[in-house]
């Protein structure tokens, strides 16, 4: 049906274009009368013959030709025209009056009404082929034996001869079939996320073939110009390798527990400051517990630590916490934030759940618990598939699986390209751009993404460097040879798990098949009726079509369909690995994309790393580790993990520091560039970076150093002096008072009320949306509730409690969290059913434990919730409050039918109120 229609289209096309004006847009703003005088005044002083940046703005054609950074305008598209961008952003003209909005409007109008360029080269047709054809005539598929990727393969053609006959468009199958609407085949468009070519594109192909189909001369090689990064650029501190400084000797030598303190004290002393008094023993206990495990100390921990009088009691405690399985669940989360971890694909409204993403989450938690050296950790995540020749491995070892799962690091960003209406070249490139954002913000600490559309405005990162980095991913993420996120999985799983899933699913699948057959039987007469009424006898009739058309069919099959849907829900995901892996073969050529646009090919580029990062470093040199692996990502990992890399170690130790001390030594943890913050303690940063490498990139050793420093053990009490001399605490003259983050609050509540199910790892816990709109994790009072890291992290249904406390959206990732103080937090803690229930269980347990001793109940509540004993005054006040509340509850319960004795019930509820108050108190939600 559609093919016929397209042929009609072609015939009509020319007729319509000739007869009716709305086909071709007339030029509303003639260049000579309105535009030229404006350019004359504002631009020609610099951009005339032999103008600045080789840009000549005297004529339309010279403007279209452009200068050093490509064409100045894109005909018909002012939104994507450099000239317009420059005047709009007011960066041009550099001196004198900027253009007014009305003047800009004149320029925009002119560009929008300009018809596209006349001269065509291969650079103009290549993007058309890439966007519309190579999915079937490219690397993986060569329908009809035809490959349209290169000039040679086009000339060679396919089974029916050459695809192009230079000079003769009408004799060139490529042109013929596209112009007639036969290609791309209308029926395959949607499933391949391809749009049919525009009139202008068809015309471009015709002109190109007419002109003799000239092979490309105009895509210059990148080697031509590398002048954009200078030696001076490389002098910037963050681009120089860290040099280990000598440890200073501050005056307060007795306050120095380790070199961290020496660096900090030296700076404090220069402002006539020293460390604050040490924190109280139990304050420090709670701080370090929450910091390293995300959970508060239990009463038994408080008791044991209070009694431990050994001089190294604290160091022993730190060692115990670092060895706790809870440690990886806390510190793994920070890394998952950096990776942009999510259990759903996002972008599309349905927010499709990613079945096997959790394996990567578990990998990260285990890596932290095992203290996997950071260089190894990073290498596995960037190039795990290039570390082991898994395709030819005889056996599926746990080690091999782990390395493949690790590459999930680069599979976490939003990815809607599984949907045909969001799977075009543009959206594929957005996925790659997001993954580069993950690497650059979390490992490099640079805003590389700024160079996607133009040279970085502030840092020496030319646009080319962005595309060289992007080319590193191209052997796995090839925009011209795309694999949908729903299919980009490796079919590897431990035998046991595979069998278990198969055994679980087999009877369900049989049941579904049976039900479907039943449904089909009922559908048959309706199908016949449908077909009889249809003019198109080849039509594929879907079940939905029948439901839509025949209400009686809908009614008749409602139960059956519901049954199928419910049974399908019981199926478990097939165990697979969500990995990033090499596609094999020769990756497609990478180009610089002018203005960041898929259709604007610039120079061809080779995979590479930012040019400015070269001082003292071995160059980036990809080499295949084994056949069908380009080695591009492995070389990136090797390059990044050089011990003297100027950014990898600094950026990571800075983040550890930020998580422990509240702010980074570089306060902009994802921007170490010129616009980032200068380090508050540059020598300390370098000492830590080199110390990290010296200790074999051990994360735990680094953290041990940080939390056992005297700096970390300071009190958070602020004196007027401190406020005056170190108002922002940049010198770390005290520990900051910090609000718990979302996960600390969620998990600590469960821990205190003893409702925490300590089960680790595995598929995520489901969430449910309550009628009122609250999103909660599924759990039960019997089994308890699991830590937030194990709850489904779906983009559209964050847990209400977490969201209220600033859980960040992963778009694509989060390096530094924001903290807000807003009323919905208070509402959540004081009014939600969830916390009410937890508080009641908490109170119930206290009553069970100390049945006849309200004072002990209160004392225990304080100890459990706040990690400290209650003072006698607090107990006295709390008991008075409970009495008062119990009376009020008794009044309340009078109005309700209750089976239990009212006095018992009301005391229980009153104690619950105290428990809830403790759990929503400032003392609980803040860490001293």
């Amino acid at each position: 049906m559609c093919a016929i229609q397209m042929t009609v289209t072609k015939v009509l096309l020319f007729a319509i274009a000739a007869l009716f004006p709305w086909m071709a847009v007339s030029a509303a703003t003639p260049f000579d009368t309105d535009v030229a005088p404006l350019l004359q005044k504002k631009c020609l002083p610099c951009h005339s013959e032999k103008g600045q940046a080789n840009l000549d703005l005297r004529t339309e054609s010279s403007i279209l030709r452009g200068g050093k950074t490509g064409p100045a305008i894109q005909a018909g598209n002012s939104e994507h025209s450099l000239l317009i961008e420059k005047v709009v952003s007011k960066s041009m003209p550099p001196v004198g009056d900027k253009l007014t909005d009305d003047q800009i409007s004149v320029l925009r109008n002119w560009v929008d009404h300009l018809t596209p360029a006349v001269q065509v080269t291969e650079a103009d047709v290549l993007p058309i082929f890439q966007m519309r054809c190579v999915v079937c005539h490219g690397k993986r598929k060569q329908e009809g034996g035809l490959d349209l990727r290169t000039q040679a393969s086009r000339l060679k053609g396919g089974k029916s001869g050459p695809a192009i006959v230079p000079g003769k468009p009408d004799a060139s199958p490529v042109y013929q079939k596209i112009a007639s609407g036969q290609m791309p085949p209308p029926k395959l468009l949607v499933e391949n996320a391809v749009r049919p070519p525009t009139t202008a594109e068809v015309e471009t192909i015709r002109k190109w073939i007419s002109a003799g189909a000239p092979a490309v001369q105009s895509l210059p090689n990148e080697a031509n110009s590398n002048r954009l990064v200078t030696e001076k650029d490389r002098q910037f501190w963050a681009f120089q390798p860290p040099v280990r400084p000598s440890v200073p000797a501050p005056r307060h030598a007795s306050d120095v527990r380790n070199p961290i303190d020496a660096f900090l004290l030296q700076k404090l002393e220069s402002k006539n400051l020293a460390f604050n008094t040490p924190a109280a023993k139990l304050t420090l206990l709670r701080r370090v517990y929450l910091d390293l495990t995300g959970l508060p100390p239990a009463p038994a921990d408080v008791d044991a630590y209070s009694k431990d009088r050994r001089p190294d009691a604290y160091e022993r405690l730190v060692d115990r916490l670092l060895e706790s399985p809870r440690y990886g669940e806390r510190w793994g989360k920070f890394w998952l934030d950096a990776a942009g971890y999510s259990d759903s694909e996002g972008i599309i409204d349905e927010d499709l759940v990613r079945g096997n993403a959790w394996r990567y989450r578990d990998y990260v938690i285990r890596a932290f618990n095992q203290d996997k050296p950071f260089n190894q950790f990073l290498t596995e995540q960037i190039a795990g598939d290039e570390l082991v020749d898994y395709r030819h491995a005889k056996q599926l070892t746990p080690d091999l699986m782990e390395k493949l799962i690790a590459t999930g690091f680069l599979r976490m960003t939003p990815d809607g390209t599984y949907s045909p209406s969001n799977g075009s070249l543009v959206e594929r490139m957005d996925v790659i751009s997001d993954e580069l954002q993950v690497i650059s913000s979390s490992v490099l600490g640079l805003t590389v993404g700024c160079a996607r559309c133009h040279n970085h405005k502030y840092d020496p990162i030319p646009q080319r460097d962005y595309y060289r980095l992007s080319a590193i991913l191209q052997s796995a993420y090839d925009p011209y040879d795309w694999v949908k996120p729903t299919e980009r999985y490796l079919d590897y799983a431990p035998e046991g798990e595979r069998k278990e899933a198969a055994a679980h699913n087999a009877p369900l699948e049989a049941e579904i098949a049976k039900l479907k057959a039943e449904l089909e039987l009922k559908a048959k007469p309706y199908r016949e009726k449908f077909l009889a009424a249809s003019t198109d006898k080849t039509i594929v009739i879907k079940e939905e079509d029948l439901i839509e058309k025949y209400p009686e069919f809908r009614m008749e099959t409602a139960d059956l369909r519901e049954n199928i849907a419910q049974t399908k829900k019981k199926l478990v995901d097939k165990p697979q690995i969500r990995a990033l892996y090499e596609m094999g073969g020769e990756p497609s050529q990478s180009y610089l994309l002018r203005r960041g646009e898929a259709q604007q090919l610039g120079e061809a580029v080779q995979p590479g790393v930012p040019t400015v990062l070269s001082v003292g470093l071995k160059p980036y040199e990809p080499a295949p580790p084994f056949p069908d692996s380009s080695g591009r990502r492995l070389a990136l990992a090797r390059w990044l993990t050089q011990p003297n890399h100027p950014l990898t170690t600094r950026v990571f130790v800075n983040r550890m520091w930020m998580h422990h001390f509240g702010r980074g030594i570089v306060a902009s943890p994802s921007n170490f560039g010129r616009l980032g913050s200068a380090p508050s303690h540059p020598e300390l940063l370098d000492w830590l970076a080199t110390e990290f490498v010296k200790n074999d990139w051990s994360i735990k050793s680094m953290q041990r150093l940080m939390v056992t420093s005297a700096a970390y053990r300071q009190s958070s009490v602020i004196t007027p002096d401190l406020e005056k001399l170190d108002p922002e605490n940049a010198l770390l003259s005290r520990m900051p008072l910090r609000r718990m983050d979302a996960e600390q609050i969620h998990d600590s509540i469960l821990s205190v009320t003893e409702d925490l199910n300590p089960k680790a790892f595995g598929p995520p816990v489901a969430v449910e949306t309550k009628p009122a709109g609250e999103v909660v994790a599924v759990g039960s009072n019997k089994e308890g509730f699991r830590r937030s890291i194990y709850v489904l992290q779906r983009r559209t249904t964050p847990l209400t409690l977490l969201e209220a406390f600033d859980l960040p959206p992963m778009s694509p990732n989060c390096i530094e969290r924001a903290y807000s103080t807003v009323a919905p937090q208070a509402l959540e803690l004081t009014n939600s059913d969830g916390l009410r229930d937890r508080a009641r269980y908490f109170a119930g347990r206290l009553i069970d434990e100390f049945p006849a001793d309200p004072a002990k109940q209160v004392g225990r509540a304080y100890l459990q919730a706040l990690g400290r004993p209650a003072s006698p005054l607090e107990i006295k006040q709390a008991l008075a409050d409970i009495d008062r509340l119990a009376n009020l509850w008794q009044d309340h319960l009078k109005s309700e039918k209750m089976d239990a004795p009212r006095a018992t019930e009301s005391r229980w509820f009153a104690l619950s109120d105290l428990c809830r108050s403790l759990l929503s108190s400032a003392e609980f939600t803040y860490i001293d």
Partner: protein
Amino acid sequence: MTRRDLFSRFASGLQGAALANLFARDMFGAYDLKAKAPNFPPKAKSVIQLFQNGGPSQVDLFDHKPTLEKFAGTAPSRDIVNQIEFADQIGTMLPSSFKFSKHGGSGIELSELLPHLATCADDICLIRSMFGEHFNHEPSLYLMHSGRTLPGRPSLGSWVVYGLGSENQNLPAYVVLDDPKKLPVNGIQNWQSGYLPPIYQGTRFRSEGPPLLNLKPSEELESPLVEAQRSLLHRIDDAHRQARPGNPDLDARLASYELAARMQMTATDALDLSQESEATKEMYGLNQDATASYGRRCLMARRLIERGVRYVQIFIEYQIWDAHSDLEKSLRYSCGKTDQPAAALLKDLKQRGLLDSTLVIWGGEFGRMPISQTRPGQGTAGRDHGPAGFSMWMAGGGVKRGYVHGATDEIGHKAVENRVSVHDFHATLLHLLGMNYRDLVYERQGLKERITDQIPARIVNELLA
């Protein structure tokens, strides 16, 4: 130098940009929602956005194209085909089956589907030359609400309250009234604050039941009991704070708890429609099934604006304007739900003298195609998405009344005259609120972020009164 010169000089340089960033912070450097002075005197103080998810069909509602009738049944050009979401369901040129007529002194032509809006023709500023960047819902919603086709950036409402704060500290500055039946496409992402601090995120008010999630405990408790619970927490918190002077965070926390308590009164009161007269309720269509739900939200929006809320966003059931099939039935349904309440909102604001200081905006994420779409087995023809040209209207604070701006081509497909991009629209809206879009910056990791970044945008001066 005139006062206007002074303001524009003040607002356009770096100085203004730096100030914008400082304005949003209180004396301790924390971000807050206190009312902030704009860059220059604003035309509008608050915004009500009537967002029409799905893509209302411009050629059936706002943009009369008699030419289309001449081509009825002919095949579309390649350029149209190129932009279709369902390339396998392409139909032919489809003229509107609805009658258009001129209304009011301004003579704005509107479709018979909008009889109520027609009575407000002289109050609206109709833009017929909007254009977007993507043919699919999700990216187009991201674009309309945040300026980019990808998720994760701050919404327009977040930018507005970041720049201006709120006149009422007892209610959220940015309120979202979503449809209880179903969230719009992209759900909560439509009002996220992205990289802006979370306090600038939109707060969902429910139009049924308690207005705010957990505004009250689910158990009905007597006020002395609630008071006693509150004072218990206050006592514990106050002692904690007294022991830790010099921590503004703790003051802010205490204030947030007090606000939460006050909001039980203020939010409940703001959304209590029983205080409205019968005539008002009737005007909004609260007494009719079709209009009751949307009418409630429109009326609530007026009550919120009256109380100094800066930005109110109203959504309508999922994407009811997405008429891929049964165009006629679908449009009658959508207009039947929205036309009367939206017009009532304009009239009500006007009679209360609030329309001069409130900007009302009406529109979806794109429009629809001038050609038909046929889905096998699914009723009569519909229209596929059309981002190349569509209509929106604004009314109130600072925009021309009874005015039509721009035009699409003769078949209503592509905006050709006085084109207005989504970025232009954002820049103009901020301008009406007294802010220069280039100066509304947020510093993140050393970079200056703006709603439009370096994307060309222009204040559409022709729209300004």
